């Protein structure tokens, strides 16, 4: 029936010459199309699925949601009547903003404004027009450059209540290549948020992200936050530690806390952590699931002394040296590493013994020299727990010796619950000497698998040999069954500390003294046939060798950083180089 009607109309369309008549016929034909008989509720559901979603960058160029208004009259009407379709306000071109604001009626808005220092008047006017509707804005993202117009924008935010605002993000744009926060502040300026922003009314605000913004810690608008990200707060507006702690303490429902260069400073000349502030209560955040702190190690250590976290919180602490003061790492690393055991002990009181995994990584030069990444993951019925600590510094500004780095690495590892760890993976570019290793290995009573890559291997082998001397009472690494070594040169270094010699002696002692053997494997290592044969004899088991040799970290300069990245994964399944006998133990 419908198809017959459609056929008749098609014939009439073919015959029609009058434009008006033609449009009427086309509308009649459209009315018969199955798609036209969809209820408006379904049409708007489809339109909303096509809506621009600023969460996905690739969606930004997709204008299908706009094109639907050009399909036919009925679709245009349905789209124009659907206020939700127009709530994600566009500012490019600027005159769209006014039209979208009109079409969105009173629906909650999503406003994302990015204004460069010398923004066109029309764009600034469009932005200000959108900000006159603050009471209807649910999500507000402002990217500003400190400029003449900032005051105008802030004034608009100050004079209206934000009744439905849930997510506020304000950031001053900056040159991302600059790292020193103070340099960024000096070159780009900051955005000052008044204490009476939104007329002190934003009852639904849950998510706050501020970058390069001066904010008052006494602002009670933020007490209901579940997500807080503070990035690069100028030192001049960081207030005092008690005020900052009070600010955090009020946010009982906080689930995610990200702090980057925002903790109150202890003063530019403070080298060690001062005593805790007297009578300062701890900050208890019972719902926190993620804590990320990227800060000068000293300030980071300072803050962590006051934090009490639930056991399932994912903690990432990245301690840096003070950017403006070269060689400040050694003095600031100590309070940083001291803060970690206290945090662990607080956590350890709450959850009992669980097997754990330790992953230590020293980043490679191509990524900038960094220091020790140490996640500890425990798996339990109560959920996963992970803990990552890392020390970083700018290699151009600091010239720390291997001794200092070695000590700091050991301190970080020792801060983890070593007595629970069953598996260790350690990737390193820098050496960790045998004394530091001895401190660590003595605690690894549960470890079954060890995987060592790079320069850390040499100190490890020497420590293993030392620990296997007959005079020692305890069996070192009593449960160790598998040892995998990657990216090492068995003939390095020269002398009695040679990796091959130390390893062989340790394995022989272990077998003779305790009757214990280890399954050994080499990946991407330089090893001679003679060395391999002797080691197989010492550890009883056949040794597995894989991968092309790659010995970064022992003096060979690598130009191509990508080689280091490849080496992380253990390499391809080819046999390790079995070199000439002359490279062997006599070297």
């Amino acid at each position, binding site marked *: 029936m419908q198809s017959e009607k459609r056929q008749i109309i098609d014939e009439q*369309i073919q015959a029609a010459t009058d*434009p008006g008549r033609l*449009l009427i016929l*086309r*509308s009649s*034909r*459209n009315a018969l*199309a*199955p*798609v*036209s*008989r*969809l*209820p408006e*509720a*379904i049409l708007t*559901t*489809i339109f909303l*699925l*096509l809506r621009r979603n600023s969460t996905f960058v690739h969606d930004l160029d*997709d*204008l*299908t949601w*706009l*094109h*639907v*208004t*050009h*399909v*036919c*009259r009925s*679709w*245009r009407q349905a789209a*124009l009547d659907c206020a939700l379709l127009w709530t994600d306000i*566009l500012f490019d071109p600027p*005159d*769209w903003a006014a*039209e*979208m604001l009109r*079409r969105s009626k009173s629906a909650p808005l999503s406003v994302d404004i990015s204004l460069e220092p010398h923004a066109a008047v029309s764009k600034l006017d469009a932005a200000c027009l959108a900000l006159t509707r603050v009471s209807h804005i649910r999500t507000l993202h402002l990217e500003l450059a400190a400029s003449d117009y900032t005051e105008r924008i802030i004034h608009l935010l100050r004079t209206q209540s934000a009744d439905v605002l849930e997510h506020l993000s304000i950031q001053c744009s900056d040159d991302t290549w600059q790292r020193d926060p103070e340099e960024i502040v000096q070159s780009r300026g900051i955005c000052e948020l008044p204490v009476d922003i939104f007329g002190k009314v934003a009852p639904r605000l849950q998510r706050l992200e501020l970058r390069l913004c001066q904010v008052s810690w006494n602002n009670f608008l933020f007490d209901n936050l579940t997500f807080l990200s503070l990035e690069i707060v100028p030192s001049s507006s960081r207030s005092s530690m008690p005020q900052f702690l009070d600010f955090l303490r009020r946010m009982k429902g906080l689930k995610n806390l990200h702090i980057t260069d925002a903790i109150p400073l202890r003063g530019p000349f403070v080298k060690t952590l001062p005593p805790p502030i007297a009578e300062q209560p701890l900050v208890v955040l019972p719902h926190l699931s993620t804590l990320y702190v990227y800060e000068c190690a000293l300030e980071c250590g300072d803050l962590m002394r006051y934090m009490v976290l639930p056991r399932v919180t994912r903690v990432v602490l990245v301690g840096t040296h003070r950017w403006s003061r070269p060689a400040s790492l050694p003095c600031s690393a100590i309070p940083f590493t001291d803060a970690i055991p206290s945090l662990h002990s607080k956590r350890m009181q709450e959850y009992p013994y669980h097997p754990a995994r330790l992953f230590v990584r020293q980043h490679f030069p191509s990524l900038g020299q960094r220091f020790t990444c140490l996640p500890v993951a425990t798996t339990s019925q109560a959920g996963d727990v992970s803990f990552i600590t890392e020390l970083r510094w700018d290699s151009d500004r600091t010239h720390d010796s291997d001794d200092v780095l070695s000590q700091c690495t050991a301190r970080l590892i020792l801060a983890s619950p070593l007595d629970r760890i069953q598996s260790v993976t350690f990737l390193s570019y820098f050496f960790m000497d045998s004394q530091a290793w001895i401190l660590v290995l003595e605690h690894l009573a549960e470890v079954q698998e060890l995987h060592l890559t790079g320069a850390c291997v040499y100190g490890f082998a020497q420590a293993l040999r030392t620990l296997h001397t007959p005079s020692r009472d305890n069996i070192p690494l009593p449960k160790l069954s598998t040892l995998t070594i990657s990216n090492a040169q068995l003939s390095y270094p020269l002398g009695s500390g040679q990796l091959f010699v130390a390893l062989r002696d340790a394995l022989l002692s272990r077998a003779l003294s305790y009757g214990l053997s280890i399954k050994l494997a080499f990946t991407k290592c330089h090893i001679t046939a003679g060395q391999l044969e002797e080691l197989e004899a010492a550890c009883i088991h056949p040794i597995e060798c894989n991968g092309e040799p790659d010995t970064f970290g022992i003096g060979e300069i690598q130009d191509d950083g990508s080689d280091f990245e490849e080496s992380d994964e253990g390499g391809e399944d080819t046999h390790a180089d079995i070199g000439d006998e002359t490279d062997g133990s006599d070297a």
Partner: protein
Amino acid sequence: MPTIVSVDDSTVPGEGSSRLLLLVSSDNKHIVVEEDIMSRSRFISKQVEGFEATSQRHAILLPFSSFVLNKVIEYCSHYRGYYLLEDDPDAAPPGRSPVREWDQEFLDVDRNMLLRIIKAAHYLEIKSLVGSCARAIADMIRGKTTEEMREILGVENDFTPEEEHSPSSKCTG
């Protein structure tokens, strides 16, 4: 349109652990289906509540063909016992929702059939099926030009030149 007619008790098989319903399609096909399967439909649930109030057994008349009805029953049978967020946002425990890849295959039908299914789902108030169909239609036209959309949907440009360039067409890409 009346949706309920009285039927002989013998038409509907007896009461077991899951009661049976008689659905009558627009092409007058009688389809017996377990009540549990159709419980995803708020429309059917409301009808059944009505039966309980009157202690009468009824067939439920539906304004779409048996072909479409069978597709809807197939969908409901597949998700029998599952919580789907759209249908029951309060009751759905985390992790119970199955992967919805099945929907993609299930809705791999021609345009007209897809439109019939979404209309039936809308009528029966099965939000999850409406959502899946709407996603399928949206995917069909996503990234297409206006002309391509008209071709896919089988509609004509019925705008006057003035309408095409009127202020209301401003901000339409």
